[in-house]
């Protein structure tokens, strides 16, 4: 279904991001090759100007990628009205093997782009641009992801045929033992909730340690922030799982309607929007704080790291709490008041 207005819009967004990525990567290569802060040559002055080009490209590319992700989910919702068996975006994204990986690549590039911007803000806040080389490596690392995202989107759209029979979200995210097939393949719904509660508690504790011991020795900071940085992705995936299998049926008021995408439609949007907003801001701020702390242990130079880590840790902790409260509200209300 490549000749659909949705498809053309998605491919346009991917093309813009890839072109920006290529220009940014080419500039990064030049920066890596010739960057010499001690020099006051014409080339160095030009390279310093090019930092702004890369930053503008990444910032604008990030905005396009966020719009592209929203577009992708809405397009999948539209495709569900055409595909046999699909009832919402979950069905159309699993209609072939490229839909969910494409969405995953979009989310990864959004997180990577946001982290890049955080590092960039700290970099330009310092006189000697301590992270310029690191930023260039990061951007070069992001390029394959952007190209992969574009390729996956095209492959998904090319292989999407109206005659494909797909499943609805109740089956895809259902219990594997009861339905025989489940994308999540979890053993028990309560186990997933228990795991999320545990990891949330650990993350909150870790962030608190990171917050109160900003001036701690490098080794201790590396251990705490390293553990936090590796925990946030697990927290994110578990949170998405819990939203799908535990929270969404309560929001819809239907025990077998397990869908993370319908939450983005009216009237569920009033819960879905804050839920996803709190989750993403929490993960971004938390991941940002931990990553920046790790970077500052390896490359010293920026004077604003402590302030940034303090602020980001506070934001991530409060957002995690807000997320947990929003996620728990509907099941709690059901247990207390019963029914709708």
């Amino acid at each position, binding site marked *: 279904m490549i000749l659909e207005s949705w498809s053309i819009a998605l491919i346009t967004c991917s093309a813009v991001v890839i072109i*920006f990525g290529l220009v940014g990567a080419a500039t990064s290569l030049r920066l890596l090759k010739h960057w010499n802060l001690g020099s006051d040559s014409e080339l160095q002055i030009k390279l310093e100007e090019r930092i*702004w080009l890369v930053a503008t*490209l990444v910032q604008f590319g990030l905005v396009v990628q966020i719009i592209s992700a*929203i577009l992708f989910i809405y397009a999948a919702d539209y495709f569900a009205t055409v595909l046999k068996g699909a009832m919402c975006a979950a069905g159309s994204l699993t209609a072939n093997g490229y839909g969910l990986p494409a969405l995953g690549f979009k989310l990864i590039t959004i997180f990577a782009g946001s982290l890049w911007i955080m590092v960039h803000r700290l970099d330009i806040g310092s006189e000697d641009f301590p992270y310029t080389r690191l930023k260039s490596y990061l951007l070069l690392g992001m390029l394959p992801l952007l190209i992969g995202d574009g390729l996956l989107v095209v492959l998904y759209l090319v292989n999407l045929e109206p005659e494909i029979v797909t499943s609805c979200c109740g089956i895809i995210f259902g219990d594997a033992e009861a339905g025989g097939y489940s994308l999540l393949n979890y053993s028990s719904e309560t186990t997933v909730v228990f795991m999320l509660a545990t990891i949330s508690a650990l993350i909150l504790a870790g962030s608190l340690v990171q917050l109160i011991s900003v001036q701690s020795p490098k080794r201790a900071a590396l251990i705490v922030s390293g553990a936090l940085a590796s925990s946030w992705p697990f927290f994110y995936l578990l949170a998405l799982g819990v939203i799908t299998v535990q929270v969404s049926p309560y929001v819809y008021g239907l025990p077998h309607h397990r869908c993370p995408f319908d939450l983005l439609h009216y009237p569920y949007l009033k819960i879905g929007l804050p839920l996803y907003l709190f989750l993403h801001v929490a993960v971004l701020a938390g991941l940002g704080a931990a990553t920046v702390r790790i970077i500052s242990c390896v490359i010293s130079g920026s004077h604003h790291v402590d302030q940034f880590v303090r602020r980001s840790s506070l934001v991530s902790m409060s957002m995690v709490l807000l997320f947990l409260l929003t996620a728990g509200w509907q099941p709690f209300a059901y247990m207390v008041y019963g029914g709708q």
Partner: protein
Amino acid sequence: MAARYLDRQLNIADYALGGLTRRLGKNLVVVLVFALVIFMVASFSMTTTSLKHAASQLLTTVPDITVQKMSAGRQVGFSTEAIKELEFIFGIRSVQPRVWGYYFDENNGANYTVIGVTELGDKTQLAGLGIDFLPNLKTDAAFEPAVIGRGVRENLGLGNRRAFSLFRPDLSLKSFVTSATFDAETSMVTDDLIIMDLKAARDLFGLQADEITDLLVDVANPLEIDNIADNIGERLKGVRVVTRERIGKTYRVAFGWRSGFGLACLFGAVAAFFIFAWDKASGLTPAQQQEIAILKVLGWQTEDIITLRFWESVIISISAFGLGYLAAWIHLLFFNGLLFRPVLLGWSVVKPPLSLVPVFSFADLLIIFSLSVLPYLAATVIPAWHSATIRPDSVI
């Protein structure tokens, strides 16, 4: 901190607006050309949405399941005996035989769709099609009553007359009297339609006494439609079973594909505009270069100049977006999607005088935005950076 950031952005946006009004003539040309591009993209998108909406509304009149006999890959007539086979399927509310065919009018080269139904007088048979029944429905035995579409009435040149005749295959004449005409609102499906009694349709097409072209099955529980359709397919050999849901999906795929194809055809024009935008943003006049140099001398940073350029692009694209979107809305509402309707709807001698109603959809807005505003902003990013790196000493 957020308030200070917002304040800074507002001040830069204010300055950008002032700069744009100083070069009003040039910027107005860009806005108008860009609005034209957005108008084309938006018209396609909105006409498709309106057509999908109209089709889904009219689909409420289509039976749950339609059964047709196939032979050598083509549809053929079959006997009403098949109804007996369906009587034992639990969940079927009613089964109605129908004759469906096309009548070619040699006088004007038009094709009319002829449908023969069992109970013509019964309004429930044609529920949802909005029929204006004419008063005094008394018919002569020689004249068969028929309900006709507005397009048929015009093509036959009936005027105020009610009687008309059509040729049988052996070229003898069969006479009809108009008992009703279809509502203008349903003209998308009824414009070329003539509905008559089943026996009259068989007589007109020269079919056998019990021959029909399809069976219309009404199902009590909508959730069971697919199961019953499968069951019918197993009981009756060599038939095609079409459900209403399937027809709806086919409509959506067809309109979606045509809209995408139209947009792909527009791609050249859209790309040309973005190259123009890139070129215009790259070529700074000496006065503009001087302005940037002065701002830099006054203390503006490279980032501030890029933000200024960004705000200029945003103001231009949002103005063009508003204008183009409004023009597309007017084009659809008052001119019925005149320019792009033939591409989306197809063409025939009896053209349905369909009245399209614009439907607001966030999805449409998102598509139009990503196909117009985003590429425009993207085209101006690198020139914006380029202009921000001008060194004051080289200009002043």
